[in-house]
Every structure is written in structure tokens, then in C-alpha cells.
């Protein structure tokens, strides 16, 4: 009983303190400080070189109604450039893929917010190098069954459209990609590595008739010792 009373007392005190602060802020017409308006955790999230800037509202912003302004530049440039698509956006992200196309180059992004007539300071990302930070999706796997053998076709994730040279470049231009194919014999429920290498077409031969098999694949980047998540399973029944 004593415990509950103490807790209640504490709660009441907290409520009163919060309320009186709110009243104080309201009566004095004080805006939240720039520091607490400032967008938080501004960072790039990159998948297959699609580079999205993401952030969270400042600590004092629990309500909606704030707009955000995004700028970017390559490291070493003096001028920040406005991202017009995200100039006054209410979203908490901004696609900067086309502004960060040089995969080996370091970039910065930054975000500022305006709320109730007040502007925050800029919040900047850490230095961002797409080549190093992007996460690769699993390969797309297609299987073609030929009697007792299986042809596995692998495709690396597509790069964002690059129009500066008009060329269709592939992921392999930037990493030495290795494909790994795993096969599970459904009756044994045992997974084995069926292939590891750079070929995009893999033939798995002499499978047991009247057996079921499932195939999954992943991409490995030897230079960075990183692997992609696994692909969707492709299952087949050998006649």
C-alpha cells in the first residue's frame, strides 16, 4: 500500500511538472529551442545503390505539421545543393539515388526543419560512400528442369538507371560477385552447397528421380566479406 501511494505521489509530481512547463511555454510564447527541433538520426540507407536519406523528427516534435528541407553534396565541394523534390517535404525520407550516382565517391546529405515559423539548424549525415555501404539484395533465381538435371539461372540485383553514359552496367562492374547456390533434398531435409562461383548459369546434374528439391541462392562479395540475404526458394519435383 505504501509503495502504491509513493508511486502515485511521484506520478502526480511528474504530471504537474510537465503541465506547468507546458503552461510556462505557452504563456511566454517560447518556441522549442533549435536544438530540439533539429532532425535526428539523419542517414543514408542504401540498397542496390538506391540511396535514400532518412531521418527522424527533432525531440520536441511530437506533432505533425513540420516540413523538411534537404540538401546534398559530394565531399570536398563547397556548395550544398538543394534537393528540389524534397524542399518542404513532410516525409521523413528523400530519394537521393540520382544525386549520388558515383559509387566510389563520398557524399553528404543534410536536413533542416521548419515548424510553427521556426527553423532548425541543419542535421548532417555521416560521410556516405555508396560502394562501401550499400546492401545487396539476394539474386533472382530461375530454375529450368531438364529431365534429371536442373538449370539454375542467377541474376544480380539491378543497378539504378544511370543516364550519364547511357550504358547498362551491371553489379559485377563494381564488385567481384560470387554466387552461392544451395540445394535441399526434401526427403533428407539436408542442405548442401551446390555451387560457388562467378557463373550466372549453373547446372545441377544427376538428381534422383521422383524426389523433390529446393534451391536457394545468395550473393557473396569477397572483397568486403559480405553476403546478401538468401533468395526465395525455388522447389522442383524430378519426374
Amino acid at each position: 500500500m505504501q509503495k502504491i501511494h509513493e508511486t502515485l505521489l511521484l506520478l502526480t509530481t511528474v504530471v504537474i511538472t510537465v503541465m506547468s512547463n507546458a503552461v510556462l511555454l505557452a504563456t511566454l510564447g517560447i518556441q522549442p529551442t533549435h536544438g530540439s527541433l533539429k532532425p535526428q538520426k539523419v542517414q543514408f540507407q542504401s540498397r542496390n545503390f538506391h540511396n535514400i536519406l532518412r531521418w527522424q523528427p527533432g525531440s520536441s516534435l511530437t506533432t505533425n505539421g513540420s516540413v523538411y528541407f534537404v540538401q546534398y553534396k559530394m565531399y570536398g565541394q563547397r556548395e550544398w545543393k538543394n534537393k528540389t523534390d524534397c524542399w518542404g517535404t513532410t516525409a521523413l525520407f528523400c530519394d537521393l539515388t540520382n544525386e549520388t550516382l558515383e559509387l566510389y565517391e563520398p557524399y553528404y546529405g543534410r536536413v533542416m526543419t521548419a515548424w510553427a515559423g521556426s527553423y532548425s539548424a541543419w542535421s548532417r549525415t555521416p560521410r556516405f560512400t555508396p560502394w562501401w555501404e550499400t546492401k545487396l539484395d539476394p539474386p533472382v533465381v530461375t530454375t529450368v528442369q531438364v529431365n534429371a538435371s536442373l538449370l539454375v539461372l542467377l541474376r544480380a540485383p539491378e543497378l539504378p538507371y544511370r543516364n550519364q553514359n547511357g550504358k547498362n552496367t551491371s553489379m559485377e562492374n563494381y564488385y567481384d560477385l560470387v554466387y552461392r547456390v544451395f540445394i535441399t533434398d526434401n526427403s533428407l531435409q539436408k542442405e548442401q552447397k551446390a555451387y560457388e562461383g562467378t557463373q550466372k548459369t549453373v547446372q545441377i546434374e544427376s538428381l534422383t528421380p521422383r524426389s523433390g528439391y529446393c534451391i536457394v541462392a545468395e550473393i557473396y562479395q569477397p572483397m568486403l566479406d559480405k553476403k546478401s540475404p538468401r533468395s526465395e526458394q525455388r522447389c522442383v519435383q524430378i519426374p
Partner: protein
Amino acid sequence: MAVLQKKSMSFSFMGLLAASCLLLIALWAQEAVGLPISSHCKLDVSDFQRPYFTNRTFRLAEEASLADNNTDVRLIGDELFQGVNRNNRCYLMKQVLNFTLAEVLIPQSDRFQPYMQQVVPFLTKLSNQLSLCQISGNGQRIQKNVQTLKETVKQLGESGEIKAIGELNLLFMHLRNYCV
């Protein structure tokens, strides 16, 4: 000598050629690698295929870049390569590497652990492999560009050294690009 001078031009040239061939064969036999000078500006691709060192180098750069708030000034960028043709860029990077090792990494070696102690030996090894790398012709432009980089680091003081560490990933990628 006097006898040699009396002989025809082509004959002495042939002689010279034969002599150099013999010398090359002799060097080759001793496994002293009698390759043309320019090929000393070469690193093995395998140096850049070890994920451990790639990761460490990039992580070290990442750590240091977090401490570098000067986003306007970049050491390893277009300016550094301006006026330097591709053949000489490995030599240019060698100069940058040696400067970075001696004037930046060694003085700052207490910081950014444990990455620093893993990356320094790796870069030292690359530097040793490039020790015979020379350029033919005069390297005035290269010296000028490298000098600009050095002066920028010196001018910025400690934060210049941090900046240089924050660009180790760029150093790594350019060594790979121009020396392999």
C-alpha cells in the same frame, strides 16, 4: 673503346642490344626481376582482395571521418590528379601513401584503435612494394599536386591529420585503381 668507336653505328647498337639481352637473362636467372622500370609501379590485385584489410581500412576511415567536420576540403580528389596522366598516377599515389604513413599515421598511431594497428602494417607493406616505383620524365606536376596536399594537411594541423585518416578509403581505392 677506340676500337668500338671505329665500328659502324648499327654494329655497336647490335652489340649493346646483345649485351643488354645477356644482362637481362643473367638478372632473370638470378631471379632479380629484370623488368622495365615503369612496371615497378605495380601492386598485386591480391593485396586488395583481402576483406580483412579492406574492411579495416574502410572502418578506420569511417571512424576518422566522423571526427572531420570540414566537409568542404578534400585531400584526395580531382585536384590531386589534375594534369597527371594515368600512367603516372600510381607514382602519385605512392607519394601520397608515403606522406600519409610518415606524417599522419605514425604520429597518430595511438588513436582509432584497434583499426590503426591493423591498417598501418598493411599500408606499410604496400609502400614497400612501391619502393622502386619511379616515373620517367619530370614529375614537376606531381610534386606540385602532392605539395598542395601536404600543405593543406599542415595548415589544418591536427584536423588535417584526422582528415587524411578519414580519406584512407580513398587512398586505398585509388591505389587499387591506378597501381593494379
